[in-house]
C-alpha cells in the first residue's frame, strides 16, 4: 500500500465541522493518517483549487441479486448500451440497468465508494452476494427482507421481542446481511392471497399480527440488538394517493418507541418520495412533503429521497402487489416472484414523463424532501433503478443547490404546471450549500448506517476520498452549469488509499469489502430453535443449506456486536 499526500485542497468535512478550509490530507495503508505518521509520499496530488471530500455513500440502490438480474434479462433493450469496451477493464453494459462491472465503474467515476443493496430475500442471499462480489470498486452490504416472513408475523403477534431479536440475529448471520429491511409489511403476504393491506392496523391474512405490530417489534428488537443500522422501511401503501398518511403513521410508531440507545434515529424511511402523496385519487393527488418533512425533522427518523429522473427506467421491489398495480396501469410486461414463506417481489418498466401531472408531482415531491428535511436526516437517492439511474446524483445535487437550475428544468422539460397547485416546489427558494450536499451524500448516510470510518476525513477513517475539480467556495447557484459539470467529472477517486479514478476515468480496478453484522451474541439463539425447525418443514430447501458462509464471499468484513 502506498502513501498519498493530497496537498492544498479545499476540504469539506461536516463530521469535523470543516467547511472549505485549505488543508493537506495524508493517506497510508488505506487509512487517513496524521502528517507525522505518513512517512515519505509515493504520490503527491496537487489539489490546489480542488475540493476534497469523503467518498460518497449510496444508502439505497438495487445493485445486486435476483431482482435486478431478472430485470436485466427482461430488458435487453436497456442493456445493449455499451459504456466501456473490453480492454484492461471489463466491458460495461447497460443504460439504466447495468452489469456488475458497469455499476462499480460508474460509482467510482462519480466519486462514490460505498453502496448498499437494500433488499434481498434471505433465501436468495447466496445469489445476491455472488453479484456483490462481481461489482468492483466499491464497498457494499445487503439488507435481508423481514417484513413478510412468517416467523416475523408470529413473533410480532406474540409481541415477543426476545424471540424477534434472536430471529433477526439468526437471519442476518445466515444471509451475511447488514440490517433489517421491511417492505410493505403484511402486504406481500396478502398478495399471495391476491390482496394487499391498506392500513397499519389491518390484520395480516392468516396471522394475528398487524403491520404496526410488525414494525414496532422489529424497531424495538433492532434497538435492543444495537444494530449499527436500524430498521430500513419501505412503507405500506406505497405509490398511491393517500400514502402520506400511512407514512406519517409509520413515523409516529418510531416516535413512540424513541431513539436508539446511542441517540441515533431508530427508523429509516426509504425513498420517501414514493410514499408521500396526498389526495384520494390520482386526479387530486398532491405532495405531502411539507408536512412529512416537518414530522421527520422532529422525530427519531431519517429518510432518503427516492428522486425520480425523467426518462425510462425499470421499477423493482419486494412490494409484489404494487408491481401488479403498475402492470395493470401501464399494460406493460411484468415479472412477479413469490418467495417461499418469506417475501416476494415484482418488476415493471416505467417512463417518468415531465408532462404527466402525476410524474411531475413525483419529481417535485422528491426535490421538496431534499430541500426541506434537515441535511443530517436526508440522503440523496433515486432508489436505483426505481426512480432512475444513480449516475444522475450530480444532477440531483445541482437541482438542490440552484433554484435557477430548477426553474430552467421546469421550463425546458415542460414539467406539468400541476406542480404549482399540488406541490410547494415552485415557490421554494431554499438552495442547499455544498456543505449540506456533502452531508447528504457522505456524513449523513454514514451516520445512519453506523459506519464510523466512512463519510469522514478524520484521522483513522477509511481513505475513501473524492476530489472534485473545482473550488466549492467559488461556485454560485447562478453558475449551475459549472457546478453540474464539476460534480459530474471527478478529478480523483481514492478507494482504500489507492487512486482508482483520475480525470473521470477508471485508473485501476479494485475490489471492495462486503460488510455484514454478527449480532448472534446479542440474543439467546436457543429460544427460536423449535420455531425455526417448524418453519423449515414448509421450505423447499433444508435448514442446513439455508444461508451463506463467510468463505464464499470475496472480501467479507464482520461487524461484531457484543452484548
Amino acid at each position, binding site marked *: 500500500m502506498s502513501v498519498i499526500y493530497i496537498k492544498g485542497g479545499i476540504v469539506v468535512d461536516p463530521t469535523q465541522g470543516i467547511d472549505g478550509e485549505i488543508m493537506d490530507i495524508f493517506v497510508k495503508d488505506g487509512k487517513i493518517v496524521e502528517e507525522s505518521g505518513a512517512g515519505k509520499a509515493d504520490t503527491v496530488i496537487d489539489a490546489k483549487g480542488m475540493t476534497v471530500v469523503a467518498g460518497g455513500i449510496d444508502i439505497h440502490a438495487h445493485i*445486486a441479486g*435476483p431482482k*435486478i*438480474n431478472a430485470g*436485466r*434479462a*427482461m*430488458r*435487453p433493450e436497456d*442493456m*445493449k448500451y*455499451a459504456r*466501456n*469496451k*473490453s*480492454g484492461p477493464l*471489463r*466491458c460495461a*453494459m447497460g443504460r439504466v440497468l447495468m*452489469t*456488475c*462491472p458497469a455499476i462499480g465503474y460508474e460509482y467510482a467515476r462519480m466519486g462514490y465508494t460505498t453502496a448498499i443493496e437494500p433488499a434481498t430475500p434471505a*433465501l*436468495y*442471499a*447466496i*445469489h445476491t452476494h*455472488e*453479484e456483490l462480489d*462481481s461489482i468492483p470498486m466499491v464497498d457494499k452490504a445487503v439488507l435481508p427482507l423481514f417484513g413478510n416472513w412468517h416467523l416475523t408475523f408470529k413473533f410480532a403477534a406474540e409481541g415477543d421481542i426476545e424471540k424477534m431479536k434472536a430471529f433477526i440475529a439468526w437471519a442476518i448471520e445466515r444471509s451475511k446481511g447488514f440490517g433489517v429491511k421491511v417492505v410493505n409489511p403484511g402486504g406481500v403476504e396478502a*398478495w*399471495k*392471497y*391476491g390482496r394487499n393491506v391498506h392500513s397499519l392496523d389491518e390484520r395480516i391474512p*392468516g396471522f394475528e399480527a398487524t403491520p404496526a405490530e410488525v414494525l414496532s417489534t422489529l424497531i424495538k428488537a433492532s434497538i435492543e440488538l444495537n444494530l449499527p443500522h436500524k430498521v430500513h422501511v419501505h412503507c405500506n401503501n406505497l405509490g398511491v394517493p393517500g400514502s402520506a398518511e400511512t407514512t406519517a403513521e409509520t413515523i409516529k410508531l418510531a416516535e413512540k418507541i424513541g431513539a436508539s440507545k446511542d441517540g441515533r434515529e431508530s427508523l429509516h424511511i426509504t425513498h420517501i418520495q414514493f410514499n408521500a402523496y396526498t389526495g384520494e385519487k390520482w386526479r387530486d393527488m398532491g405532495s405531502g412533503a411539507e408536512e412529512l418533512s416537518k414530522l421527520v425533522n422532529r422525530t427519531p427518523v431519517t429518510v432518503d429521497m427516492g428522486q425520480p429522473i425523467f426518462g425510462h427506467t425499470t421499477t423493482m421491489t419486494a412490494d409484489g402487489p404494487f408491481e*401488479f398495480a403498475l*402492470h395493470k396501469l401501464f399494460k*406493460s*410486461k*411484468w*415479472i*412477479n*416472484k*413469490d*418467495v*417461499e*414463506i418469506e417475501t*416476494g417481489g415484482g*418488476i*415493471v418498466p416505467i417512463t417518468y414523463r415531465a408532462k404527466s401531472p402525476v410524474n411531475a408531482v413525483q419529481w417535485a415531491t422528491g426535490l421538496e424532501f431534499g430541500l426541506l428535511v434537515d441535511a443530517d436526516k436526508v440522503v440523496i437517492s433515486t432508489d436505483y433503478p426505481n426512480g432512475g439511474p444513480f449516475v444522475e446524483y450530480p444532477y440531483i445535487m445541482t437541482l438542490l443547490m440552484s433554484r435557477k437550475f430548477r426553474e430552467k428544468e421546469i421550463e425546458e422539460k415542460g414539467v406539468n404546471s400541476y406542480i404549482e397547485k399540488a406541490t410547494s416546489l415552485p415557490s421554494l427558494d431554499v438552495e442547499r450549500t455544498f456543505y449540506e450536499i456533502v452531508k447528504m451524500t457522505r456524513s449523513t448516510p454514514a451516520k445512519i448506517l453506523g459506519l464510523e470510518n466512512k463519510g469522514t476525513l478524520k484521522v483513522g477513517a477509511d481513505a475513501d476520498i473524492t476530489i472534485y475539480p473545482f473550488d466549492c467556495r467559488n461556485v454560485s447557484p447562478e453558475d449551475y452549469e459549472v457546478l453540474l459539470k464539476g460534480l459530474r467529472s471527478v478529478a480523483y477517486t481514492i478507494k482504500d488509499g489507492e487512486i482508482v479514478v483520475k480525470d473521470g476515468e477508471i485508473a485501476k480496478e479494485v475490489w471492495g469489502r462486503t460488510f455484514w453484522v454478527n449480532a448472534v451474541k446479542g440474543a439467546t439463539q436457543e429460544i427460536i430453535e423449535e420455531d425455526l425447525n417448524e418453519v423449515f*418443514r*414448509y*421450505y*423447499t*430447501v*433444508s435448514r*442446513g*443449506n439455508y444461508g451463506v*458462509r463467510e468463505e*464464499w464471499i470475496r472480501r467479507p468484513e464482520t461487524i461484531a456486536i457484543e452484548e
Partner: protein
Amino acid sequence: MIRDIVCTFCGNACDDIEFEGDYGRNLCPIGEAKFAKKERIKAPMVDGKEVSYEEAIERAAEILKEAKRPLLFGWSSTVNEAIRLGVLLAEKVGGIYDQCSSVCHAPTTLAMIEEGIVGGTLGQAKNRADVVVFWGCNPVEAHPRHPTRYSVMAKGFLTRSRAERRVVVVDVRKTPTAYLATDFYMVEPGSDFMVFTALRSIVNGHEEAVPEEVGGLTKNELKSLAEILLKARYGLIFFGLGVTHSRGHERNVEAVIKLVQDLNRKTRFILQPMRGHFNVVGSGEVAAWEAGFEYAIDFSRGYARFSPGEFTAVEALIRGDCDAAMIVASDPAAHFPKKAVESLKEIPVIQIDPHPNLTTKLADVVIPTAIVGIEAEGTIYRMDGVPLRVKKIRESDYPSDVEILEKILEKVIS
C-alpha cells in the same frame, strides 16, 4: 454420514440427499445414476495423445487466442464460479458465449422479454397451490421427485396433502404424469397457442368467441378447464418443452404468460418453466450480471451483443461463423443438428468435462475435470432460481472446472 447434499442432475436440485460411504439416500433413479461411478476421461489429451494438464491448457489457450471468433458453449452442468470465468474468457477472446438454454428454454426467455413472467419459488407449489397444472411436461420421467417434494404429494402449510390439490395434466399423449392427475386434457400436437388463447377468451368473459372445438378439445372441455383455473385459490402452471418446442415456440410461451396475467386479475396464479439441467438457470443468470444478457452473446466488437438466431451456437456453427469452440460440461455432438456437428468437426474443439461423450470424439483438446457436486463444490441455481451450494463429497485427483478455466484465462490475458 453427509447430509443435505444437493443432487446435481435435474432442475429440481433436491437438497436432502444423504450419503453413507457410497450409499446414497433419497435419490431418484436418475440421481442414483448421476452419483454412481462411471467411465471417466483418464488424462488430458491433445490430438488424441495423452499429455500433461499444462500442455493441454497451453494448447487450449493458444486455440482461443488464435481464433477470430471462438464459441464457448455448455455451462449448464457446472457451477456459477466456472460460468463466470467462461463469460470473462469469451469477453477477453472476443468470442461467443452461449449455453444449453439456446436449444432448450430459450423460447421462454424470448417470451419473458416480451411479457415478463409471473413466477414464484417451488415453495408456492408445496405450500399454497390448490391447482397444479403440468402442461407439455412430464416430471414423473424427467424430474422424478418433483411431484413428491414440491408439487403433488408435498405437505404444505395451506395445502396439506394430495387430496387438497387439483392436479391437471395437459399433453399430446397420456404421459406417466397424467396418471397422477385429477384431470387430463389431451390436445393436438402444435395446438398450444390456440388452446391458451381460447382459455384466455373464456377467462376474460368472451366465451362466445370460442369455436366448438380448439386443438382437439371441445368447447365444454375448454370451459371446464377454464373453470378449474378460475376456481383456484392459488394456481400454478408448470410447462416444459412440449410448449417451447412445438409449433409457435416463444409465441406459445407468451400466450401462457398472458393467460396467467389474466388469471391474476381474478385469483392468484404463477408459472414455472421445468428447467432441465441442475444449473441451466445459473448459466443464464451469471451471464446477465456479467454481460447483460442470458445467452447468444457475441463479444467480437469488444462489447456484448445479444442476438438469438445469430449468436446462438447451432446457427453460428451452421453458418460457419466460429473458427474454434470450447465446450464445457455439455455434449453438443450428441444433441445438435447434423449440420452444426459437421461444422464443429471442421474447427479446433476444446472439451472440458469429467466424462467421455460424443463430443470427446471430435475434440482436439480434452481436459478432464472433477465432477461438480461430487468432487468439487460451488454455487448452482435450481429451476426457480433458488441458489444452493453443491458439495464436495469425494476426494478426486482431477482439478475442478474453476481451476482449469482460471489457468486458461490467465494464459489468454497474458
